[in-house]
């Protein structure tokens, strides 16, 4: 496990060096200016709109960074033949996977909380000017935790696809596929269950239902509306979401580890 954490540290250091990280920093500065522009455009409930803007921005940037960083690191490993070196080292193969996963998660944690902390003073200044809706700092700082759970799931899928495929483009597309399916399956299933779905062929219905049970439901981690509009959110609900995210990630990571342990690396 010690080796895995050492590898996580390396991943974290590499992630910070990836150019997209600096791009994200510049984008964040521009987004802070956007916060002021948005403030003048919103009509009512300014705190809610501004809070959602920050949370949506954090969401977008984290997803982009994780995708770009993860796949540039993988590309780096392939180009520099790191995998072959790792196999030759006196360490378990699984430490590489776990190291990459924990490193990426640590990176996502730092970036997501970095963004929400950076925005917070500006948000407070603007909200104080027009406090026409309640604003909860607890909910504001709680949201990134759910975002990180989603990132954790996506990262574990990205690792699985990287382990299964030989070309990074295939794993990129597969991970993107999981993201889109994970976010749309709930709506699609809801659609086929209503009257509108009566025209959908039986085969498609079975396929959608199977996919619904197979793929992760990523929309459960999107609690932005719940947080922004102060909707009822019990501890039980929070624990179910957290439990679901952790269990799913562990399951995917276990599959990835067993595949990677037996993979032939030439």
């Amino acid at each position, binding site marked *: 496990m010690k080796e895995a954490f050492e590898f996580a540290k390396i991943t974290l250091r590499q992630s910070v060096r990836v150019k997209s990280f600096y791009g994200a920093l510049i984008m964040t500065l521009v987004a802070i200016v956007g916060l002021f522009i948005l403030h003048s455009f919103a009509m*009512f409930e300014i705190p809610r709109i501004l809070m959602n803007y920050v949370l949506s921005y954090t969401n977008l940037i984290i997803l982009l960074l994780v995708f770009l960083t993860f796949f540039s690191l993988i590309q780096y490993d392939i180009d520099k033949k790191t995998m072959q070196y790792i196999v030759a080292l006196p360490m378990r193969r699984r430490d590489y996977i776990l190291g990459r996963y924990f490193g990426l998660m640590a990176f996502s944690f730092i970036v997501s909380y970095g963004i929400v902390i950076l925005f917070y003073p500006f948000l407070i200044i603007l909200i104080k000017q027009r406090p026409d809706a309640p604003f909860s700092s607890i909910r504001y700082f709680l949201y990134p935790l759910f975002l990180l759970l989603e990132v954790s799931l996506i990262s574990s899928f990205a690792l699985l696809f990287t382990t299964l495929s030989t070309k990074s483009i295939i794993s990129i597309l597969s991970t993107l596929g999981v993201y889109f399916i994970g976010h749309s399956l709930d709506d699609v299933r809801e659609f086929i269950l209503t009257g509108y779905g009566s025209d959908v062929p039986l085969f498609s219905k079975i396929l959608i239902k199977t996919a619904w049970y197979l793929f992760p439901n990523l929309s459960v981690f999107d609690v932005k509306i719940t947080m922004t509009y102060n909707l009822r959110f019990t501890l039980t609900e929070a624990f179910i979401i957290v439990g679901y995210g952790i269990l799913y990630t562990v399951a995917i990571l276990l599959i990835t580890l067993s595949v990677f342990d037996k993979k032939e690396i030439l």
Partner: protein
Amino acid sequence: MKRVLGILSGVIFLLVLNLTIMPRLSSLHREVRKESFRIFLSPGLEKWSSFEFRVMKAFLYTLNLRVYLGKLIEESPVFPPEAETNIIKTAEVVTTINPYYYDIYYICNGFLTWDFNNAETANKLLLKAVKYRPKDWFFYFMMGFNYFYFLHNYEMGGTYIQKAAQIRHSPFLASLAARLMYTSGRTEIAIQMLRSMIRNIKDENWKKSLSKRLEALEAVLTIQRAVEKFMRNMGRTPVSIEELLEKGFLQEKLEDPYGGRFYIDEEGNVKTTSNFLPKEGKGEIE
């Protein structure tokens, strides 16, 4: 040095491009957008395609509607008929993407009622608002107002304004609801509602104000019952309050606390010359 010069010339080129071509391109784009407004997918598909960014998408669509309506107002005082369809379509899409969004209900209600006299659709939209935001008194108030002012349905108006009064704990709204219910002939409900409001109010001034309205409505109810009894026994509508007093249907002459005079109209309804409004100059909020 060469690199810096290269970057600088690139920036200058972009600036020149933006200053020369962009205004023309932008105006062309605006023309196209005005013609087509925004071609929406079905609300379900719009929601589906929002992924994790539903609130921001709803915000952008609403902003787009605001810009569109703003331009129409600038161009002509009368809206083209397609503007109504565009408002309704946008409302459908936005409230599906984010049914909690306050602005869209506010904007659409304002335009649909005042500019297109379509209070029915506005109220349908507001029904959705109260479904998702049941604790927001203003949506009930808007619905009540639409029923009262645009649809002349005092009973429904009173019911929704009563609901708004309950949520906001507002004696003013309670008083207004009571007036609407009185106008719709539901004086007894209005009295019950006022009694319950008075019990829950802590502010003495408001309590006094509502008690005055209660007193007035109780007087109306007493006279109304006397009128009904008179009509049952005599087979006709009484000519005046005095006739009720003379024939023993009413025990005493009741005073309107607002300073008006009670009278009976041709259909046998009890009314007052004050219309339950305080005399001018008193500065009283009822």
